[in-house]
C-alpha cells in the first residue's frame, strides 16, 4: 500500500545519493590521463559502480534478514564504500607504478587530513594526479552516504511492492520474487536520476570535501529533493494502480 513514510525515505535516499556524489573524487577524462586529481572516469560510471555494489549488498541483506531495516541500510553503505576504496586504491597503484606520478591535489597547499605538502608534487600544467589521502577518505564517506541512500530507496520500494498481490511469485526457477526485481530496477533508475543531477552540479569533476565546488551542495540537495519526489511518487503510484495485483 501507498505509505507516505516510504515516499519520505525515497526522497531522503535521493538527497543522500546526490550529497554522496559531492564527496566522491571524480576526476573525469583529465584524470584518466593523470592530469587531474581523482579516479579517472565520469560520475555516472563511478557512482554507478559503487551504487550498484551498494544495491547488491543491500539487496542480499534484505533477502537474508527478511527485510530488516538497519541491516539493509548499513550493508548498502558499507558495500558502496568498499567498492569506491577498491576503485581508488587500484587506480592509485596504476597512477604511481604505471604512469609514474605522485598522488597530489592542486586545490589545496596542504592535505587537510595527512597535512602533507601538495603543491610541490603537482606537475606543471596539470591539476594534480591520483587520489591523495583527503580525497580517498572523502570518497569513502561519499560512497557510504550514496550507498545508504540507494539502500533506503530500495528498502522503501521493496517494502511497498511486497504487499501487491501476486508479486511474491517468482519467474521460472529464479529465487527472487517479482517485487525484488521491480524494486531493484527502479532503485537503479532513481539512483541515476540523482547522481547525474549531482554531477551536473559539480560540473563533472570534484576532488572531495576540500574542493571549493563542495559549497554548491545546497543546490544539489534541492534538485535531488524535487527529482526524487517526482520519481519516487511515480514508482509508489504503481502500488495504488494495482489494488488487485496481477
Amino acid at each position, binding site marked *: 500500500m501507498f505509505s507516505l513514510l516510504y515516499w519520505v525515505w525515497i526522497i531522503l535516499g535521493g538527497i543522500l545519493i546526490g550529497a554522496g556524489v559531492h564527496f566522491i573524487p571524480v576526476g573525469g577524462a583529465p584524470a584518466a590521463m593523470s592530469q587531474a586529481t581523482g579516479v579517472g572516469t565520469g*560520475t*555516472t560510471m563511478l557512482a554507478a559502480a559503487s551504487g550498484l555494489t551498494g544495491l547488491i549488498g543491500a539487496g542480499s541483506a534484505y533477502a537474508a534478514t527478511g527485510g530488516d531495516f538497519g541491516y539493509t541500510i548499513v550493508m548498502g553503505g558499507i558495500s558502496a564504500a568498499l567498492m569506491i576504496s577498491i576503485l581508488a586504491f587500484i587506480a592509485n597503484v596504476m597512477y604511481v607504478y604505471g604512469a609514474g606520478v605522485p598522488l597530489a591535489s592542486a586545490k589545496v597547499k596542504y592535505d587537510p587530513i595527512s597535512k602533507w605538502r601538495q603543491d610541490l608534487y603537482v606537475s606543471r600544467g596539470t591539476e594534480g594526479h591520483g587520489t591523495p589521502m583527503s580525497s580517498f577518505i572523502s570518497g569513502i564517506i561519499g560512497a557510504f552516504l550514496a550507498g545508504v541512500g540507494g539502500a533506503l530507496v530500495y528498502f522503501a520500494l521493496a517494502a511497498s511492492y511486497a504487499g501487491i498481490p501476486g508479486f511474491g511469485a517468482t519467474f521460472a526457477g529464479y529465487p527472487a520474487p517479482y517485487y525484488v526485481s521491480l524494486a531493484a530496477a527502479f532503485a537503479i533508475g532513481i539512483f541515476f536520476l540523482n547522481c547525474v543531477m549531482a554531477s551536473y552540479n559539480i560540473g563533472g569533476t570534484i576532488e572531495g570535501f576540500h574542493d571549493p565546488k563542495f559549497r554548491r551542495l545546497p543546490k544539489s540537495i534541492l534538485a535531488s529533493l524535487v527529482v526524487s519526489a517526482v520519481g519516487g511518487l511515480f514508482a509508489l503510484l504503481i502500488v495504488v494502480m494495482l489494488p488487485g495485483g*496481477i
Partner: protein
Amino acid sequence: MAEGERSPRQLLTIGVVGGLIGIYLANYLNSTTGTAWFSFFAGLGAVLAVFWGADAVRRVASYGLGTGVPSIGLLSLGAGQVAVLLGLAVAMNYSIHWAAPIIALILAAIIGLVSGVMARRVIKMNIAIMERSMMEIAMAASLIMLGFSTTIAGGFGFDLIMKYVVASGFIIAVFIVGGMAMLHPFNACLGPDERQKRTLNLALSTGFIAMLVAGIAAGAINGIQAAVPTMIIAIFGWIIYYLRFFADTKQDAAAVLSTGLLPKEEEVA
C-alpha cells in the same frame, strides 16, 4: 542547423509516430494471430526512437555538459523506466490497455521536464534547450524501453512485461543496451567536424545492435518465433547502417591513408 539536416520536429515525428506504430503493430498482430512472429515490429519502433533520441542527445550535448555524454542518456533511461512501468500499471488499472504506450510517453515527458527545469533553473546549467531536450530524451528513452520490452515479452500488458522482462532481469539489459544505443553515436562522433547524417547513421547501427540483444532475449521467452525474424532484421540493419556510417566517415575525413604494418625493431631505431 546546417543544410540537408533533419529538423528536430521532423525527427520527433519519426520517433514518436514510428515508435508507437511499431509497438502497437507488434502487440496487436501478436495477440490477433496468437503467435510471436510479429515481435520484431516493436524492435523496429524502438530503433526509430533511438534515431530520434540520438539526435536530441546530439543537440544538447553539443553545448558541453561537463560530465560526458553518457550522463544524460542514463538519467533519461532512469526516468523512462519508471514512466513506462507506471504507464502500463495505469492502463491496467483503468482497463485502457491500448493507451499504455501513450500514457508512458506523457509520464516520461513529465519526469524529463522536471529534471530539465531542475538542471537549468536550480543547478543553473547554461544550456538554453535543456528543458526541451531532457523531455525529448526521456520520451525517446521510454519508447526505447517499451519497444524492446515488447519485443522480448511479445506484448505490452503490465503482467507480460512484469513477468518476462522485469522479473527475468532482462530489464537491466534493455536499460543499458538501449541507453548505449542512444548515447553512443554522439559520444563517438562529437567534435568540430560532427555531421548529423553520420551520427544518425551510427545511431541506426547501434539501435540495430540493441535490437539484436532484444532478439536474443526474446528467444529465451518466446522461442524462435520471436527471435529469428528480430535477429535477422537486426543483423541486416546493423550491417547496412554500419557500412553507411563507414562511408560517411571516409567522405568526411580529410584523407584516408594506410599506416602500414608496425615497423620492425631495427627500423625503429
